[in-house]
């Protein structure tokens, strides 16, 4: 089953889902990541995928040419497992890619994270919402968005990168 997160999502605490015998309130609903871009736009994600940057490959003892090739593959996100979660034609961006491209001879951070971010419309008259797949790399498994990547994502040019999802007729 293919689902696009952000559509028809839960919109508040699961009050209605409490046990009728009263087990107490559920914790408040919180998006997996929600933040305000520097532009003031709010974005959020309801699904996130995380894996090792080089998959099952060990990260050491590669000759420089092999490392560069592996790094190129990571940059292209070819055959990324999370790609099957969403339609293939969604726009995507890798945070800090230009810096990684300048240092292809260096081992990349340990983990690769991918999330489909959702926000309000880009064009109020045409869109109901907008979406962008964001990839990022980091050495820590948690928090999901490191401080450095948090700063990078906030600086994103959302309106220039994201896809507006047309309003329903």
């Amino acid at each position: 089953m293919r689902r696009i997160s952000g559509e028809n999502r839960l919109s508040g605490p699961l009050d209605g889902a409490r046990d009728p015998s009263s087990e107490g309130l559920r914790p408040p609903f919180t998006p997996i990541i929600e933040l305000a871009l520097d532009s003031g736009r709010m974005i959020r994600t309801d699904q996130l995928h995380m894996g090792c940057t080089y998959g099952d490959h060990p990260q050491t003892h590669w000759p420089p040419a092999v490392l560069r090739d592996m790094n190129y593959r990571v940059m292209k996100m070819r055959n990324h497992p999370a790609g099957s979660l969403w339609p293939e034609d969604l726009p995507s961006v890798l945070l800090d890619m230009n810096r990684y491209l300048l240092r292809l001879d260096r081992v990349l951070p340990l983990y690769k994270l991918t999330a489909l971010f959702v926000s309000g419309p880009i064009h109020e008259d045409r869109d109901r919402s907008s979406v962008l797949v964001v990839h990022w790399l980091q050495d820590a498994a948690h928090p999901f968005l490191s401080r450095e990547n948090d700063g990078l994502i906030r600086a994103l040019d959302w309106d220039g990168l994201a896809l507006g999802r047309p309003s329903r007729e």
Partner: protein
Amino acid sequence: MPKPLIQVQLVSGRRIAAVQLHVGFTYGTYTKVFQEVQRLKEINLELLFSEYPAKVLWERKFPSVLLRRDEYSRQAAAALPVYKMTALFESGPLEENSGKHSAMVVNWVQDEMNPILSPRNRQALRALAWEEHAKDFR
């Protein structure tokens, strides 16, 4: 193997490691069903046996379990925890010297994102009968 996302030593002594993780909402796109207890029960039972997102994420068919499923099944009228974690775990082969490794998908639900594996779920995972559920893959 690169540094795994989660590493656990099972009660049996076997070490397992998560190489991929998906984090999402337990109820996914369901929104308007929670007012009716009967409907909630039906959806909970469906979710407790759902193979999403594993069957979408991985082409290969891995065995799959949901930690504490029995516990949740006994309280089917109660809301499940908010977040569903799905991880692909790997370990050494079930058959020694087979040149393979064993693998399976483990799902768990919890109300917090940190730690990724809550103490109660870690305890349940440690008790997992890996040899009973996992399969060898090349």
